């Protein structure tokens, strides 16, 4: 149901682009105006979100320690999973951002009769997650050939490496296959695993299907449907240089591809896709575990919150303390004839 909602929206967007590009002025709208807008929204709101996170205080030093801490000199510290220095934190973050280290630790639990719990290694999510992100990155970088003139050297190298098997004409890029395969895996995983399906929102299916739509239209344009690459490159180049020109020879499928990308850019800063920025700012990962060694300052620490005072404590229990031989600060006053009941608690003025 939720996946159908998301699918419906993506199909509607595709249709909108296809029809929209066919009406007068539509080509400029879908080829120039909306992409510009989408890109602007992406940049502005992405930065705004990250700034918003970065500006909010980190009151406490709360790394998740996932290994032995810095302790006695003869105890071996796990410097990556429990860093106590900035360089250790950088190492932890690099592994997290580039290799998804935490996800690599994933396990799968099962309960059997007995009862008996069993835990197995489970690396598929890590593997396909990694494949998806890296193939996506490669594809985005490869697209720079459309936006640049002359094309930078690394793009040529990337294209060559990506097509090294020299299969087909035009040459088949491995990342295209990996990209669509990994996306399909992530989608099927969401649909088929009962607990993942249960936690999934339309907002989880939507980006998957949207990106799948971008991938499929892209692959179709490269390998199946003939498109006017020269004109597309002219448009892309024009978008960068500020002189975009939409040639009449650009076909409808391109506008679908382009519009889905526009939607992705626009949707990005307002969605879970912001994990791209959030991963850098997670206080359980990017802080050193050194809070007993170096004082961490909380900007909003409230100095007016004081412990129940010792004096107040002794006042309440002084006689018992003296009777029990416990040292006191103030000797008790001579006992009046009737014993006073101990005070019942504190007053607001105390704190």
């Amino acid at each position, binding site marked *: 149901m939720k996946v159908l909602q998301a699918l419906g929206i993506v199909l509607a967007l595709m249709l909108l682009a296809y029809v929209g590009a066919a009406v007068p002025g539509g080509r400029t709208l879908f080829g120039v105006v909306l992409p510009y807008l989408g890109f602007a929204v992406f940049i502005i709101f992405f930065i705004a979100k990250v700034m918003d996170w970065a500006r909010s*205080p980190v009151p406490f030093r709360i790394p998740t*320690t996932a290994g032995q801490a810095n302790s006695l000199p003869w105890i071996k510290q796990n410097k990556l999973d429990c860093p106590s220095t900035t360089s250790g934190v950088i190492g932890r973050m690099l592994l997290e951002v580039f290799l998804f280290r935490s996800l690599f630790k994933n396990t799968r639990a099962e309960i059997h009769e007995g009862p008996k719990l069993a835990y197995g290694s489970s690396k598929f999510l890590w593997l396909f997650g990694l494949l998806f992100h890296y193939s996506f990155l490669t594809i985005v970088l490869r697209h720079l050939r459309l936006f640049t003139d002359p094309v930078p050297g690394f793009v040529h190298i990337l294209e060559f490496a990506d097509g090294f098997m020299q299969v087909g004409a035009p040459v088949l890029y491995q990342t295209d296959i990996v990209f669509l395969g990994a996306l399909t895996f992530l989608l099927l995983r969401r649909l088929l695993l009962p*607990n993942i399906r249960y*936690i999934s929102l339309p907002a989880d299916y939507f980006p998957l299907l949207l990106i799948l739509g971008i991938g499929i239209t892209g692959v179709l344009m490269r390998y199946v449907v003939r498109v006017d690459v020269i004109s597309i490159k002219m448009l892309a180049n024009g978008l960068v240089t500020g002189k975009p020109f939409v040639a009449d020879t650009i076909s409808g499928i391109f506008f679908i591809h382009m519009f889905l990308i526009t939607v992705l850019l626009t949707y990005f800063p307002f969605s*879970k896709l912001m*994990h791209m920025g959030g991963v850098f700012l997670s*206080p359980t990962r990017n802080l050193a575990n050194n809070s007993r060694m170096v004082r961490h300052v909380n900007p909003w620490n409230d100095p007016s919150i004081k*412990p129940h005072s010792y004096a107040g404590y002794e006042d309440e*229990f002084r006689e018992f303390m003296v009777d029990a031989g416990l040292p006191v600060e103030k000797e008790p006053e001579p006992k009046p004839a009737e014993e006073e009941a101990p005070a019942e608690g504190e007053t*607001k003025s105390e704190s």
Partner: protein
Amino acid sequence: MADTKVEQMSISVAKDPSLMTGAIPTQDWMDVPAVFKPGNYCYPGKKDIVEYLDKNLPGKLFGEPREWKVEDDDWKLPENWKEIIIQGMKDRLDKFRSFKVFMDCCVRCGACADKCHFFLGTGDPKNMPVLRAELLRSVYRNEFTKAGKILGRLAGSREMTFGVLKEWFMYFYQCTECRRCSVFCPYGIDTAEITMMARELLHLVGVNTNWILEPASNSNRTGNHLGLQPHTFAQNAEFLLDDIEEVTGLKLNSLSFNRKGAEVLFIIPSADVFAEPGIYTFMGYLLLFDHIGLDYTISTYASEGGNFGSFTNNELMKKLNGKMYAEAKRLGVKWILGGECGHMWRVIHQYMDTMNGPADFLEVPKSPITGTVFENAASSKMVHISEFTADLIKHNKLKLDKSRNDHRIVTFHDSCNPARGMGLLEEPRYVIENVCNNYHEMPENTIREQTFCCGSGTGLNTGEIMDLRMRGGLPRANAVKHVHDKHGVNMLSCVCAIDRATLTALMEYWNPGVEVCGVSELVGNALVMDGEKERDSGLRFEPLAGMEG
């Protein structure tokens, strides 16, 4: 003991339809209401307790003190309770980056789903950390995000209602803030942080549990969570000297209370003074300090290391914790040594210096016996007993007879907080391996940073939710059972007072024949004291190996 018999529970956890056993829920989680019935909730805070706490903290952190019942349809909430919650969320979003980032960047990949002990034991979808967080996130989206406001349920947002509040009360009290899920999350989302925020919000409208608030208010007034007055606390500790004498033939005279000028202030979870099996851990501490001639004192004013405030809100946590430094300053000690307690150490390690420091009136801790300077505690000035003991052993300062623990086949439970909020993994193991001959690790997915909670932390160790606790503790118990069956393990050691209480109940239920102890009890058994009599029993008067009958 739990309401459900263990035979029945064993079948239920593995067979009853749940998300753990492969049954697929038919209703969307947003449409499944939380239903309270006896056994699945903790009793609410008593009116006078809430009044007392309210009086002692600024603002209106604990809502309106009142009598209310969880199963009633009317929780007697303030009229503007929704506004209070939303405003409370806003305030906290502005104060905690963790809260903000964790609300925004979850992708629901599900890596955390089967990492939670409560999910593994109940199969309840809302015990998957991701859904637990979504309970709060859905409201966050509705109030604070554009996508949530425009797209509504498509973006996973929903309005704050009484039903949602009930859900929060149910599921944020089925999380023990153990942080196991946060080890596996690719963005380090820590459900402990989310639970802390949710509980703070619940407190704002007076939705609370007595098992947390009463110990917290006792700790504030009397120094310890049971409300023992100073003389009673001291007497309890002194009784244990008699027990030590019976076991060792030695009358220790090194124990003192509130003594000014001592070198070290020793702070323990107070349960070690009055509850089994913590008292044996306490006897271990005292023997150790006497053995090395440590100049130390225990405070009756700061007689609770545990911090029940940390299960409520930041303010109460700070207030209760403040006693440690205040007392260290008053007594003029050089540094502080801390006993075996889990969440006490989370607070000391990650919060204390920030909240109540700088402790510039103390010195960088230096062991008077070995000369070791504890650089890792250079600022907070507080050292963990396992660090301290490990250092003593490494420098050969202890006379130990390992064979006196030969009647124990030991395993070690990493308590959540020292493991995942501190990184204290090797120190207790080093100590155990030097005082015991028989030691076996539980399976690797259940120890160290992957350790499983006892199932009753964060103030859930109350009698009214026994079934739930036995379910939540199942993953831990199951791992113990594995080494019990394989190696005959009969002693589950740990460095946490809540563990000592709760694992004991858990073992009685799932693994009869396995006892629970603090690491320092094992140390106390093995210590060869000057002038002691020949020992034929351990600290709990149990016969040593070869001394039976």
